[in-house]
């Protein structure tokens, strides 16, 4: 596996925020769960009516699901397993050949 399979089970969520209450709720969640911002580039740029793409580690995915449901924030899964997508991106070429 590439990158020693470190992304197995990691996911990318697309979160859609419709009002300021949801913006604040997401910012609160961010204090609890570390996320890698794909879009926008940082939490300070989150605003109403924005879509937020975040990469979440596999150990945090269930917690994020639960928190978003609790806050009734709309979201969907962009990438269900990052490791699989990484392997697919370079067409399963052998990592040794690439490196």
């Amino acid at each position, binding site marked *: 596996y590439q*990158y020693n399979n470190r992304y197995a089970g990691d996911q990318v969520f697309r979160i859609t925020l419709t009002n300021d209450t949801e913006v604040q709720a997401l910012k609160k969640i961010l204090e609890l769960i570390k996320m890698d911002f*794909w879009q926008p*580039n*940082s939490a300070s*740029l989150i*605003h109403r009516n924005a879509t937020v793409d975040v990469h979440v580690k596999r150990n945090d995915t269930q917690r994020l699901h639960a928190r978003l449901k609790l806050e009734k924030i709309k979201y969907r899964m962009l990438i269900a397993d990052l490791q699989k997508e*990484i392997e697919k991106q370079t067409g399963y*070429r052998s990592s040794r050949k690439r490196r």
Partner: protein
Amino acid sequence: SESQYDYEVYHSLEEIQNWMFEMNRSRPELVTMLSLGKSYEGRPLFVLQLGKRSCLQKKSVWIDCGVHAREWIGPAFCQWFVKEALSTYKYDSVMTRLLNHLDFFIMPVFNVDGYRFSWNTDRFWRKTRSKNHKFHCRGVDANRNWKVKWCDEGASSHPCDDTYCGPFPESEPEVKAVAKFLRKHKRHMKAYISIHAYAQMLLYPYSYKYAAIPNFNCVESAAQNAVTALYSAYGVRYRYGPAATTLYVSSGSSIDWAYKNGIPYAFAFELRDTGHFGFLLPESLIKPTCTETLKAVKAIASGLLKKC
């Protein structure tokens, strides 16, 4: 050799640098290889100058790719641009005219240390790889390290954040080297283009304020022509406009710096896609993405040869 190089796969930094040497060796009539300096980790910052040699000073276009390490489609596009420019010179009238009348400075990998790190260790690394002696975290966001509205909204002064602006503007040797080169060539540099991913947008100044740039009409028209040309390839729609209104107000980035330093046309492309694959755009999409983006870049460059 050049003919065996596969432009429809992602390449490591070493492969890209070897490819640059080969371009320089095999096409001396159109290609000159430059080194702007060294990265934080001591790697060369290579640039390819494309264009028919001329004793007259020509207008110039700068294109950088790979400012953010994880945005691999950028370097793929820079290589695609060089390949298309060299293979269609004398066969495609537009490219022939562009290379006869313009010099293109192509930097396939701006953030060489970060790109290498994203290949070997962290696929989603974004920043450079500079060290901060007070914090264990590394790296600066090279697009937040320019001396224009530095470290303002949307940038962070914390070294562990992905949008860390750095200890001071141009603290990153990569940014300093490019800024120095552009300052030196600014009289002839008519367009600055920075290739990023993902969002399918074409952005121009300002990022840090809602005001319109003085030559708004010309730049807006160039952007419109570019996204129309891009759309003509596969029907992919790009949004375009000033970064502040099209995206969000944020601190100054490289396009704001280029514009502030006198380069009249400064664009940032956010290439495919809109989030389905995000940074993991499959290799099967390199060809269509680069084909459509090439049309857009040629449209922008062609506009420079006309009066506006």
